[in-house]
Structures are given as structure tokens and as C-alpha cells.
């Protein structure tokens, strides 16, 4: 497999996972940008454990997931039922704080970053294959969990909460508990993604975790469709692939292109390309076809 194809497949998978990490809390109208800070914190933590303390990758990955979930849970205790704009600003503030912390901590390379992380498997090819299998296994597991969530009572409660919080409360939905659950799960996914993201490049640098990343994930979720999980699955490779097939001079303007696509979709197709109705139609067609 060529290096370009490896990066396309792995980064697309990370974008899918991170978009799902944003999608899930957005089911409760929470734009949980804390996930990017989770990526940064868990990524640097894993890098530090592996490089400075000789931890095996698997253990560092577990530590990354745990750190993500833990930070997400603690923060969710305060913003479990907060308005969208408050959740947004808490996420942004965490990104600033964690970036400033990394800039000042020499043990994780400060502004220089961490380079030359060890390979996950013996050879470069084995390393790439392991990362690829791992990241897509994670896509399958997380996708399955979100699918089950959507088709459960809790998922339906989330849908009610998106439309009307007061209605959800009067129907007996514990909106605080639900908020904590999805925010923690979303941070947990993001923590794991942060670890994998760094090991794809075998390095960590603050430039990997900028506000552009927030913009990209947001574009993926809103262009793909924020009412179903399938939108991100299609939009992530399409949008990442777009920046690869464009001529370099145009591709350097990819953030402008993403921003323009995001605005165009919000104005012309407010629910994104894969709407809930479309997903439902596809699901029923598929189930009829299977029965036949």
C-alpha cells in the first residue's frame, strides 16, 4: 500500500471517529469541542508514556482512552445540561489551556513537539498495517455502539431532548444523566483518537491540534448530516479526499473550501446530505431486500 493511501485511509477513519464524537453530544444540542482538547491531552500523555517511560503502545492507548473519558466525565459534571454556546466555549477554553500547558512543558517537547515515537510493530509496513486495522476496528466498534444507542430508548430520549429540553424533562428523561453519558463517551473516543492520530505520524506537534481541526470535524458532521451517524461516514473520506485530489495551489486553500461548503450546505441543505428520512428509507429498503 502506498504511503498516500495509508494516510488517506487512516486519517479518514480518525475524521469519522472524531465526527461521531461530535455527533453524539450534538444529538442533545451540545457542540462538544472539548473533544479536540481530549485528543491533545490523551495524545501527548500517551506519547510521553511511550517515549519517556517505555510503556507499550497498547497500555498507552488504554491510558489515552481513560484520560479522555475521565476529563470528559469531570467536565460533564458541570455542563451536562448547559446551553450549546456554553458547551462550545468550555471546549474552546480547554483547547487554549491545554495548548498553553503543552507549550510550557518541556517533558513533552513544548513548542518543538515530540518526534520519533517508536513503531507499534517491528517494521514500517507492519506498523502501518497494525494502525490501519486498529483504527478501522475502532470505527466498527464505535459505529456499532452508536447504532445501538440510536435504536434504543436512550437514543429516542436524546432525539426528544434535541427538539425540546422541557418536553424531554416532562417525559421523565434525566437530561443531566444523558448529557454526562454522551459527553463522557464522546471524550473517551476522542482520547483514543488522539493517541492513534499521533502514532499515525509517529509524532505529536501543537500544529496537529489547532482550531482548523474543529472546523474540519464540524464541516464533516454538518455536510454529511447531523441527524444520522451515516453522514460522517461518507463526508469524512470525501472531504479529506477532496484536499488530496485538488492541485496543491488550490488545496492550500482547503479551509476556505471547507468553510464555503459548510455555509452552502447550511443554507441549501440544512440537514446535510444524509438526512434521517433518507437513512430510514435506505434502512427499510435494505431490510426488505434481505428478507427477499
Amino acid at each position, binding site marked *: 500500500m502506498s504511503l498516500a493511501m495509508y494516510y488517506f485511509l487512516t486519517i479518514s477513519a480518525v475524521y469519522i471517529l472524531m465526527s461521531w464524537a461530535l455527533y453524539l453530544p450534538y444529538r442533545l*444540542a451540545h*457542540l462538544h469541542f472539548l473533544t479536540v482538547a481530549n485528543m491533545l491531552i490523551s495524545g501527548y500523555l500517551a506519547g510521553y508514556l511511550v517515549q519517556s517511560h517505555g510503556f507499550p503502545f497498547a497500555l498507552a492507548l488504554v491510558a489515552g482512552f481513560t484520560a479522555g473519558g475521565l476529563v470528559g466525565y469531570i*467536565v460533564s459534571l*458541570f*455542563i451536562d445540561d*448547559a*446551553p*450549546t*454556546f*456554553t458547551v*462550545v*466555549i*468550555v471546549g*474552546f*477554553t*480547554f483547547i*487554549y*489551556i491545554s495548548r*498553553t*500547558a503543552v*507549550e*510550557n512543558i518541556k517533558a513533552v517537547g513544548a513548542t518543538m513537539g515530540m518526534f520519533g515515537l517508536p513503531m507499534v510493530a517491528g517494521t514500517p509496513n507492519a506498523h502501518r498495517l497494525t494502525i490501519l486495522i486498529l483504527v478501522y476496528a475502532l470505527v466498527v466498534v464505535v459505529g456499532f455502539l452508536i447504532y445501538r444507542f440510536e435504536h434504543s430508548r436512550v437514543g429516542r430520549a436524546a432525539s426528544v431532548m434535541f427538539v425540546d429540553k422541557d418536553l424531554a424533562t416532562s417525559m421523565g428523561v434525566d437530561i443531566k444523566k444523558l448529557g454526562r453519558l454522551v459527553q463522557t463517551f464522546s471524550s473517551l473516543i476522542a482520547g483514543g483518537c488522539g493517541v492513534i492520530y499521533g502514532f499515525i505520524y509517529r509524532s505529536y506537534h501543537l500544529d496537529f491540534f489547532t*482550531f*482548523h481541526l*474543529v*472546523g474540519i470535524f*464540524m*464541516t464533516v458532521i*454538518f455536510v454529511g448530516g447531523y441527524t444520522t451517524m451515516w453522514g460522517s461516514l461518507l463526508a469524512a473520506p470525501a472531504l479529506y479526499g477532496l484536499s488530496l485530489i485538488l492541485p496543491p495551489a488550490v488545496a*492550500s*486553500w482547503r*479551509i*476556505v473550501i*471547507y*468553510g*464555503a461548503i*459548510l*455555509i452552502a450546505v*447550511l*443554507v441549501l441543505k*440544512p440537514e446535510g446530505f444524509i438526512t434521517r428520512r433518507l437513512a430510514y428509507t435506505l434502512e427499510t429498503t435494505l431490510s426488505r431486500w434481505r428478507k427477499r
Partner: protein
Amino acid sequence: MQVFIAQVINGLSLGSIYVLLATGFNLLLLVAMIIHFAYPQVVVFSMYIAWVVLRYTGNSIVLAVLAAILSSVLLNVISAPLFQKIMKNREEVDINTTMVMSLGIGMIITDILSHGFNKGLPIAFPPKLVGETPILRVGLISLMGGQVASLAVGVIAVSGIFLLLYKTRPGRAFRAIAEDPNGARLVGIPLLRTGLESYALSGILGGLIAVLLAMLLGYSSPGLGEQVAHKVLAVSIIAGLGNLAGGLVVGLALGIMEALVQGYISGSWSNAIAFVVMLLVILFRPRGLFGIKL
């Protein structure tokens, strides 16, 4: 003591900019019902336009101010139909989607500034605008022209906006829409025109802020908009969204706190401390200190 006084003066100047930004932001929120997260990015874009005009007109400050105001008004008014279309699509006020739209606009502005101006490098404003020597110097305390101007224009502009809102007919229309859009429509207030007026007014304010920020900082960079946007939204949330008086208090307090932290704590940790304080207030009072006025 001199350090303290000097930093309080710095903080008041910076705080007055935050107050102006929060006022423009809240005006759009109250009347047009949008969370214009990219408003500070519009301001930074206007700073760049002012810089270009200063370069090509031999540092003509009058033309730079006019260009900054014009570009800010134009960007605001151009984005208005997009926000209106979103509202129309959803047949209801959906400030969350307007915030996403605004984040998209912010992405575009920041990237255009990164690629299209000065090769993405920070820009420096000429001493003619920034001021070469302090107006007043007593020991460690020195007052630069930009500090005095931002404080003075800040006080005048905020007083003007409060007067406009509470003592004039258009101001009453603005407040009526903020209070009850359907009721305002019933009594004959044109919602669309008044909404557009609020875009234009916040645009004028944005242009002024751009010039003041240029005078105060003496430089600008593509990332400045994101950083300021974050602080302005934080000021508005801590004050209580839509709360103009609260924005005044919190904006000044944040400016003073930032200046004091920078004065007493060395290194780049100072910025993080201001953010940590902001974060703690938001976490413990997610609906603001003075109450949401929406």
C-alpha cells in the same frame, strides 16, 4: 504600586475593547437573534483592510478608519441574508445553527488572512497610528495614545449605544424585537429592516474597534480573531448572553485581570491563567453572573 496602576490602566484600555466587542456581539444576538461568533474575525479583517489602506495611501488615518468601517459594515451586511435564510429554512429562531454558520464564516476569514495578506505573517501598524512616544510618563506608568483613544472611544461608543437603545425610537424597536419578536411585528416594527440596521450598526462599531485595536496592540495576525472571538463569547456568557450592562462589567474585569496576570506572572502561562479563571466561572455559572437576557 506603580506596576499595579500601570497594569490597571492597560487593563482598562483592553477591557474597553472587550466591552465594545461584546456590545456589538450582543446587539446582533438580541435584535438579529444570531450568535455571530465570527464578529471579532470581521473586526480583525477590517484591521487588515486598514493596514492595506495605510500602506497605499501614505499612512492616511482618515481613509484607513473609513475603509475599516466600510469593510466591517459590508461583511456584516453581506452575511445577513445567509443568516436570514437559515432562520427561514427552520421557520424559527435557531441560534445554534447561526453559531455554526458563523464559525464557518470565521474559518474562511482566518484562512484568507493567513494566505492573502503579508504571506500569513503578522502585520505591524505604522507609528503614526500607534503613537511613537507616550502622552504621559510617571515612573513605570506610561500612557500611550492608543490606550487613551481606546478608553475614550470605548466610553463614548458604549454610552452612545446605551443612549440609542434606551432613549430613541430605533432603540425601542431594537429592544422590542429582543423582548418579543412576534409582539414587535404586531405593533408594526419592520423586523427585517430593523435586523439589517443592527447588522449595519454592529458593522460600524466593528470598524471602530478594528482601528482602536490596531492603535492599542500595534499589530495583528490571522489567529487574533479566533483568540478574541473566544474571549468575547466568554465575556458574553459570563455576563449572561444578551446582557449589555453585564458585558460592560465583565469586559472591563477581564481586561484588568489579564493585564494584572501579565504584569505579575512571567512567561506564557499568564494567558492560561486568564483562561482558567474564565473556565471556572463558566463551569460554576454556565448561565452567567448577571442572567441571560434572551
